[in-house]
Structure formats: structure tokens, C-alpha cells
């Protein structure tokens, strides 16, 4: 039964009128010849030469921009694991070590620049007067007084106003307006390791930043492609 059906299908195919077959074949040839003529027009004469030159130029541009082609802009988020504060004459700094971050570790040798730094954290003012929080960075982890910090560390964030016995949350989107000495902060980040201090700008210098303060670093790294 099945064999009979297949045979009848073959018979039906075999009965396609010759005119239709020729028409189909003709349209196929026509299409191919049009394509051939378009291609030959494109590839010959001054336009073809222009195409060839354009191809060479594109290859030359791409060849000269391998570090541009092989670059990536990446964002990493780094959370401080400990609090930093200046309370009752005691100072606690936080160590920032980007080596803890896997993405940074993978690409640090190819970093071409840090494009943007943003941060987000809470700042608590335990005193009875308004305070302005300041952040400093230093490679020295033994700075023990506010005076030593102001004299020997680099101010990187300033002007964060916190009302008395209150707290404020600094949003990443607004954070860049507090930056000072961004170039030095960038250099330290590229080196990968430093200590972060936070004090109030005036006596009694007391202020606190709870743990989980977040830093976002957007950096570009480039790897030369070899052709």
C-alpha cells in the first residue's frame, strides 16, 4: 500500500508540464546572470578599485587599532568588610585591597585607565553638633590621630554633611560631587592597596562609617590582538 503511494507521488512529479519546467529554469538562469553582472560591475573599473582600496584601508585601520578593538570597560563593586571610625580618640581604618576582587586580579596588568569611581555608604554622626565627614587615603595603617591623618594622608572625599546625632546615606549617583584629588585616588586604586580613614573635619573629629561601604570602579583594560 505504502509502495503504491510513493510510486503515485513520483508519477505526479514526473507529470510537471515541460513549459513550467523551462520557465523555472529560465528564471533561475536570469537571476544568476543578473547577480553575475552586478558582481562584475562592483568588482571592475574605478569602483572596484575603490572597493579594494576601501578594504585595504579598513584592514589598515583595524590593524592599527588592535588595542582599541581588544579593550573592554568593566565595572567592579568592592565592599569594605570592616567599619571605619574616629570615636573617643580611637581611630579605625579600613584596608582596601583590590586583589580580593577576581575581575580586578584577572585584568590588573592590562588596565589602561580608571574611567569612573562611585561609592555608596552610610555615615553616622554620634556627636551633638553637625559634622562634615572627610575620607583620607594612605599607605600607612598606623595613623593614630586626626592631626596625623590630616597631615600625612590624602584627602579624597570631603563635604559630606551629617546632622547631629543622625546619619546620611550617600547614593552612588550623587557621590562624585564629594571627590577631591581624584588622580591620586586613581593612582592608589591602580596600585591596588591602601588604607581608608574617615574623620570629621573639625573637633571632636568623631564620625563613623559602618561596614559594607561600597566602591564601584569602572576601568578599561586592553589586550592587543595579534593577527
Amino acid at each position, binding site marked *: 500500500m505504502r509502495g503504491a503511494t510513493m510510486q503515485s507521488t513520483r508519477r505526479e512529479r514526473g507529470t510537471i508540464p515541460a513549459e513550467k519546467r523551462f520557465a523555472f529554469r529560465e528564471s533561475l538562469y536570469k537571476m544568476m546572470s543578473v547577480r553575475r553582472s552586478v558582481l562584475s560591475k562592483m568588482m571592475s573599473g574605478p569602483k572596484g578599485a575603490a572597493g579594494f582600496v576601501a578594504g585595504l584601508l579598513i584592514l589598515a585601520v583595524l590593524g592599527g587599532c588592535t588595542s*582599541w578593538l581588544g579593550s573592554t*570597560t568593566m565595572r567592579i563593586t568592592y565592599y569594605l568588610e570592616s567599619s571605619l571610625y574616629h570615636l573617643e580618640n580611637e581611630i579605625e581604618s579600613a584596608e582596601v585591597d583590590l586583589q580580593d576582587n577576581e575581575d580586578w586580579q584577572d585584568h590588573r596588568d592590562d588596565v589602561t585607565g580608571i574611567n569612573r569611581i562611585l561609592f555608596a555608604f552610610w555615615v553616622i554622626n554620634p556627636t551633638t553638633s553637625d559634622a562634615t565627614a572627610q575620607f583620607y587615603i594612605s599607605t600607612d595603617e598606623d595613623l593614630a590621630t586626626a592631626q596625623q591623618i590630616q597631615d600625612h594622608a590624602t584627602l579624597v572625599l570631603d563635604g559630606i554633611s551629617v546632622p547631629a546625632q543622625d546619619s546620611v546615606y550617600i547614593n552612588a549617583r550623587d557621590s562624585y560631587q564629594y571627590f577631591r584629588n581624584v588622580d591620586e585616588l586613581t593612582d592608589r586604586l591602580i596600585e591596588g592597596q591602601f588604607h581608608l580613614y574617615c574623620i570629621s573635619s573639625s573637633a571632636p573629629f568623631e564620625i563613623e562609617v559602618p561596614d559594607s561601604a561600597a566602591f564601584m570602579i*569602572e576601568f578599561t583594560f586592553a589586550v592587543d590582538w595579534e593577527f
Partner: protein
Amino acid sequence: MRYRPILPAILCLLIGLSAAAAAGPIGIGVGGGLNLPIAQDDAGSGFLYGARLRIGVASFAAVEPCLSYLRQGDSEVELHGQPVVLDGGQSTALGLNLILGSVGPPGGMRVYGVIGLASHAMKQEGTDDQSRLAISLGPALEAGVGPNLALGLEARLHMISLDGGGARKNIGLSGGLIYYLGRQGR
């Protein structure tokens, strides 16, 4: 703010020279489309638009002074359990494109290559404004839709150099219309 006025000055000079050297059709074009960032965590998909003046300098070459605006979409990140939307950036570019291929009077369908050089004035929240050099390249397709009017489609890789090295790379997928001045015909 890092701004180098030398690049726009060079481009203006090139535009002037190319206008003087016009030997083919001259067209005015406008267009817009998608701006898709490649390998950029800090930007999402955006848009671009611009205007151009095409000056034919030979039957197979044209120069194209152009002014474009590229917007990168914002990116989102989660911090302390809260989503934060961050500015993806934007740039205004003054540039000069070199068109190689079929660039004669409009008519039919034609394909050509575009190589562009531009000065981008870049802005992004949280960074300093910068003026950077950019190179773009890619293929374009143009179809005549009237004696003086053509519809163009273009896919171009824009590489905007960054301070220190590397580049922002975007794929611009755009379409537009170009109107050729004067009486045209092949």
C-alpha cells in the same frame, strides 16, 4: 576639562578643502538609529542621530563632513539591595567621512564603504568632560527612491579613544535620507 580645539579646527579645514574639490554630486543627509555598546559594563543600548553633507570628489569617492549625537543608554547596578541607575554617557561628534565605492548620482541600489574620523566631545556623570578622537568604519547601502532622493542604511563600528588607552566601541545601526542637490541622472 580636557578639550583640544585643534581637532575640530583640522576637520573644519578638511571640510573647506573638500567642498572646494567637489567634482560629483552634492547631497544633504539626515538619519538616526541605534547605538549599541560593545564590551562596556557602564553603558546600555542608546540611540544616535546626525546630519551630513556629501561631496562627491570622484565617481568612486566622496567626502562627508558630519555632525552626530551619540547617546549611550544608562546602566543599572544593585547596591545595598537597591537598584541604582547610572548615566551611560553621550557625545557630540564633528567629523569627516570618506566614502569609497559607488557614489555617483543616485539611482538603483548601491553599496559603499565608510571610514570616518571625528572629534567627540564626551560627557558622562561622574567623569570630567573630554574631547577624544574617534575612528569609525563599516558598510552602507543606498537605494534611490526618486530622482534626487535616496534612502540609506549603514552599520558602522565607532571606536572612541579613551584617555590612557583603549576605546569605547559602539555599533551604530542607522538609516536616513539623502537629498542630492541639482539635476541628477546617470
